[in-house]
């Protein structure tokens, strides 16, 4: 078991495996998203309160969920890299940050576009979910800024790992404090509380979207990490051989 994990974490092995894996993630992911999008846009009945505007949740919820997920992946792999000195883990953290940040921006914009017809305003400070999502985006920006500021890759990995872990401890605290803050605001919330159970025709496309997004996200992450691994391993023999091999690898 341990040997297997060790082999997995070896950069050349990962580099080859990831390339094989990516299409197997993208294909089912794309199918699920296609089904989810079609069913969500055309099959699911309009919401009795929000009308057709509710269909935005089919992209908003998965992207919001992935923005958190990406931060957790980033922080956990940064921690693994820092504690057990595994270079691959640092590469994963480095790759997860920009992808996670882009999904955070997506969640913020789709949230705002949803809010426009619902609340009559693009941004509602009273909504705790959007506010914590915004703070999460700032955490991503801080992380990437620190990485950019340090030239030496190994040092940047370790320094940003400390920041990611401190940030991960703070994420639930931010979540909680924003929740507490807005509960005193009596502001409107996106998801109605205590409403009737969500219709299956609405739910299944959403689940398909969430799984599909996750698979495609994993593929995008692997692509990023492959580039990071290649950069980190640029001095090694296996990269030299890879480049000199007749087939190469584009």
């Amino acid at each position, binding site marked *: 078991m341990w040997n297997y994990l060790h082999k997995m974490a070896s950069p050349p092995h990962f580099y080859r495996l990831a390339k094989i894996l990516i299409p197997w993630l993208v294909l089912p992911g794309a199918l699920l998203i296609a089904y989810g999008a079609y069913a969500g846009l055309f099959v699911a009945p309009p919401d009795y309160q929000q009308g057709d505007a509710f269909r935005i949740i089919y992209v908003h919820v998965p992207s919001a969920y992935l923005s958190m997920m990406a931060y957790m992946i980033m922080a956990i792999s940064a921690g693994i890299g820092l504690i057990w000195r595994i270079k691959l883990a640092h590469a994963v953290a480095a790759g997860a940050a920009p992808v996670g940040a882009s999904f955070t921006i997506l969640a913020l914009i789709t949230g705002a576009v949803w809010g426009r017809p619902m609340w009559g305003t693009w941004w509602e400070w009273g909504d705790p979910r959007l506010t914590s999502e915004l703070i999460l985006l*700032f*955490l991503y920006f801080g992380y990437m800024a620190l990485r950019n500021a340090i030239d030496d890759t190994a040092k940047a990995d*370790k320094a940003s790992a400390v*920041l990611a872990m401190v940030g991960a401890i703070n994420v639930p605290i931010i979540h909680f*404090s924003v929740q*507490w803050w807005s509960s*005193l605001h009596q502001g409107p919330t996106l998801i109605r509380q205590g409403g009737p159970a969500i219709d299956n025709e609405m739910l299944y496309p959403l689940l398909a979207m969430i799984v599909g997004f996750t698979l495609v996200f994993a593929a995008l992450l692997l692509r990023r990490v492959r580039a990071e691994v290649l950069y980190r391993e640029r001095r090694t023999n296996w990269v030299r051989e890879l480049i000199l091999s007749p087939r190469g690898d584009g």
Partner: protein
Amino acid sequence: MITNERELPGLMAGFVATVKRDLLLAWKRPGDVLNPVVFFAVVSTLFPLATGASPEQLEFSGPGVLWVAALLATLLSLNSLFLADYEDGSLDQFVVSLQPLPMLALAKALAHWLTSGLPLLLVSPLVAVSFRMPAEAIGVLIVTLLFGTISLGLVGSIGAALTIGLHRGTVLLSLLILPLAMPILILGARTVSLAATNETYSAGIYFLAAYAVAALALAPFAAAAALRISYE
């Protein structure tokens, strides 16, 4: 040669000596202590000037303004937490000594709080009065600022340790620390405004106290790890 019989400088001695040294340095450069306090007062003045000074408005915005100003003032002084020691090489001497680094981080954070957080606490009632804050709310303000500045200093010490030796460290430090500081700001400002409007506010104080205790226990180790990384 280190032998067991000989007396080595202890942990507590190192802690006390470091705090003492930093206080002595602050004593010799009182400007460094005064600057954040003046900054706090000036920033608090900006808000009434910018947004209007009707009594209701002052009462409404007072807690938030004071807390934002305190946050910025603390942040301003945090940049130099390890920087001076790094630049003159005295941090090198500490890193290569038998004193553990987390102890240094804690001592520096305490000295920093004594020279920047404490003066803020002392001045804040004066500014609060100008915002027509009721007496009880001022008491709550001081308590929340007490826990808040301790937490900010400790969380900030991690950021300060990560950014020593980097270009444009001040901007970067703000970028790293402000998102992390938001729960403290939210809890602090909201608790004070609850107190000002005669609502129950104790929950906020408990959370701030818990945050400060957790930061005291964890932040010195994170800052020490960050210092070691910054040295590579």
